[in-house]
C-alpha cells in the first residue's frame, strides 16, 4: 500500500465506502442513545397535559403546546436571573485570578514558587466534603449564609484546574514575544495583559466554559448555603417546582428544557476552542 491511498479522503477508492457507512451508522446509533432522553423531554414539554402519561406513549405531540414554555419560563425567571449573575461572577473573576496565577507560575521567577505550585496542585485531591463543615462555620461567622458570596468567592479564589491549564498554555507561547514587549518598556503587568493574554484565548475559552457549566449546574452549593427561595438558582428551582408548582409533567419538562439550553448553546459555540484549549494545555497523548 502506498501512502497516497491513505491521505485522500476525497477520491478514496470504492473499497473504503463500506467502512464509511459503518462509521456513520455507529455515529448515528450513539447519537440516538445520547439524544433520546433529551428528545423525549422536549417532546413531553410540548404536549398537552393529558397526553404525557398516555399509554402506549406517543413521541410526537398531537398539538404543539408552546404555552407550556411561557408558563414555565414565567415561573423560572427570577431564578434564571440569579443563575446568570452567579455564572457571570464565577467566570469573570475565575478567569482573572487563574490567568494571573497561571502566568506567574509559567513565566515569573520568585521565591517559594515550586512550593506554592505543589501546594496548589495537592488541593485538587482533597474531597470538598472534608472541609465542608469548617467552611460552613466560617461562612456563618462571616454572615455569608443565605447570601450569594459562598457560591462564587471561594470558587474564584481556588481555581486549581484553571491555573494549571493556563500555566501550560502560557508556557507554550514563544518567549521572544514577551522579550520584545519588555524591550519596548512594557511593565510586567502590561506584558501579561496586552501581549500574553490574547495569545491564550482558546485556553481561556475552555476554562471559561467549564467554569460556566460548573456554576450553572451546581446543586450542592445552593442546597447547603442558601435558605431563601428568592436567592435560589435554576437547578434548585427545578427541584422546588417538582413539589410546589408543577404537578404537571409537561410543565416540568418545559422548565427542565429551559435550564439546559444555555450550557448547550455555549458548548455548541465553544466546542472547537474547548478541544483546542485542552490540547494546548499539553495534556496530550
Amino acid at each position, binding site marked *: 500500500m502506498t501512502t497516497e491511498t491513505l491521505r485522500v479522503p476525497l477520491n478514496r477508492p470504492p473499497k473504503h465506502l463500506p467502512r464509511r457507512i459503518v462509521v456513520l451508522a455507529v455515529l448515528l446509533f450513539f447519537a440516538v*442513545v445520547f439524544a433520546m*432522553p433529551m428528545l423525549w423531554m422536549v417532546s*413531553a414539554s410540548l404536549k398537552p397535559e393529558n397526553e404525557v402519561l398516555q399509554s402506549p406513549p406517543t413521541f410526537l405531540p398531537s398539538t404543539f403546546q408552546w404555552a407550556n414554555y411561557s408558563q414555565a419560563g414565567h415561573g423560572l425567571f427570577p431564578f434564571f436571573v440569579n443563575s446568570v449573575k452567579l455564572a457571570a461572577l464565577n467566570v469573570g473573576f475565575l478567569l482573572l485570578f487563574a490567568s494571573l496565577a497561571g502566568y506567574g507560575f509559567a513565566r515569573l*521567577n*520568585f521565591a517559594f514558587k515550586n512550593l506554592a505550585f505543589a501546594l496548589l496542585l495537592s488541593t485538587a485531591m482533597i474531597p470538598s466534603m472534608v*472541609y*465542608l463543615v469548617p*467552611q460552613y462555620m466560617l461562612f456563618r461567622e462571616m454572615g455569608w449564609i443565605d447570601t450569594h458570596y459562598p457560591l462564587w468567592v471561594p470558587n474564584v479564589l481556588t481555581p486549581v484546574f484553571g491555573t494549571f491549564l493556563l500555566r501550560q498554555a502560557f508556557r507554550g507561547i514563544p518567549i521572544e514575544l514577551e522579550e520584545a514587549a519588555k524591550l519596548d518598556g512594557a511593565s510586567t503587568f502590561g506584558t501579561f495583559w496586552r501581549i500574553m493574554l490574547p495569545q491564550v484565548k482558546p485556553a481561556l475559552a475552555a476554562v471559561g466554559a467549564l467554569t460556566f457549566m460548573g456554576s450553572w449546574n451546581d446543586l450542592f452549593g445552593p442546597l447547603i448555603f442558601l435558605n431563601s427561595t428568592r436567592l435560589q438558582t435554576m*437547578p434548585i428551582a427545578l427541584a422546588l417546582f417538582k413539589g410546589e408548582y408543577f404537578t404537571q409533567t409537561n410543565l416540568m419538562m418545559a422548565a427542565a428544557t429551559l435550564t*439546559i439550553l444555555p450550557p448547550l448553546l455555549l458548548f455548541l459555540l465553544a466546542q472547537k476552542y474547548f478541544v483546542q484549549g485542552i490540547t494546548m494545555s499539553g495534556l496530550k497523548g
Partner: protein
Amino acid sequence: MANAVLPTLTPPAVDGGPPVRKRSKVKPKRQNLAGWLFVGPVIAGVLFFQLAPVAASLVVSLTNWSGLNRPTFLGLGNYRELFTADDTFYPSLRNTVIFTVVVVVLTIFIGLGLAVLCNQKVKGIGIFRTLYYSPAVTNVVAIGFVWFWLYDPNNGLFNSTLRTIGIHGPAWLSDTKTALIAVIVVAIWQGVGYPMVILLAGLQSIDTSLIEAATVDGASAWRRFWAVVFPLLTPSLFFLTITQFITSFQVFGIIYVMTSGGPNNATSVFIFHIYEAAFGHGRLGYASAMGWVLFVIVGVVTAVQWKMEKRWVHYDN
C-alpha cells in the same frame, strides 16, 4: 522549574521554532513582588478556603460538635462509632465502591470509543460531538426528571416498550435489586462526555506521520490502534483514571435527585451519608470524621495509582 512537579505534562513544542524556554538571554532575575502579586490571590484563597478548613475539620472530627453546643473532646470516639456501630457505613461504602469501579471503567472505555469515532473525518462531526457531550453539560435535576420518568414502572418509556413485547419490567428505582444499576446507567450516560473530550484532544495531538509509518509497514487498523495510538494515549488515560476516580467516589447529585439513597439504603453512597449526618442530624463532628475517612481512602487509592503509573503509562517526547 516547577516542571519537576509534573514531569509528564510538558507543553507542546512549537513547530520549527526555538525551544519554548530559552532563558539564556534574559538572566533569571528574581521578581518576588511581581510574582507574589500574580499568584498571591490564588494561594491565599487555597490556604483560607481549603487548607485551613481541612485542618480544622480534623480537630472537629475528634469532638461531638453540633455547631451550637460547646464541643466535648471524644478522642477517636467518632471513628470508633463509624467502624463498629454505624449500620449504614458499610453498605454505603460498598455502594460507593461498586458505583465508582463500574462508572470509572465504563466511562473511560466508552469515552475512548466515542473519541475515536469523533475523530473520523465525517461531515457534521461537530454536531455528533455536541450531541455526545450534551448530557455532560446538563444539570442533574433536569436529568433526574427525565430519567425518573423514563424509569416509571407503569408509564415509563422502558416498561411501556417492554410491555409491547410481553415483558413485565421491574420498578427500576424502587426495587432494591435494580436501583443501583439504574442510577449507574444514568451516571454513565452523563459521565462519558468528559473522558471523550479529553481523549479526543489526545488523539488530535498525535503526530499522524507515526500512524502513516505503521500503515506503510503493513499494520492493520486494529494493530495500528493498539500498538501506536493507544500507548500515546496512556498519559491522557492516566489523567482520567485519577480524576474520574476522585469525582465518582464523591457522587452526590444524581443520587440525591433520583433516589435520595433509597430504597432501603440500596443506593446510599458515602457522600450522601456525610450530608445527612451534617445537615440532617446536625452531627458536625461525626460528619467531619467521615470526611477524613473519605480523604484517606481517596489519598491512598490515588497514591497507588501514581505508584502503578510506570507500569503502563508510556511517555515519549
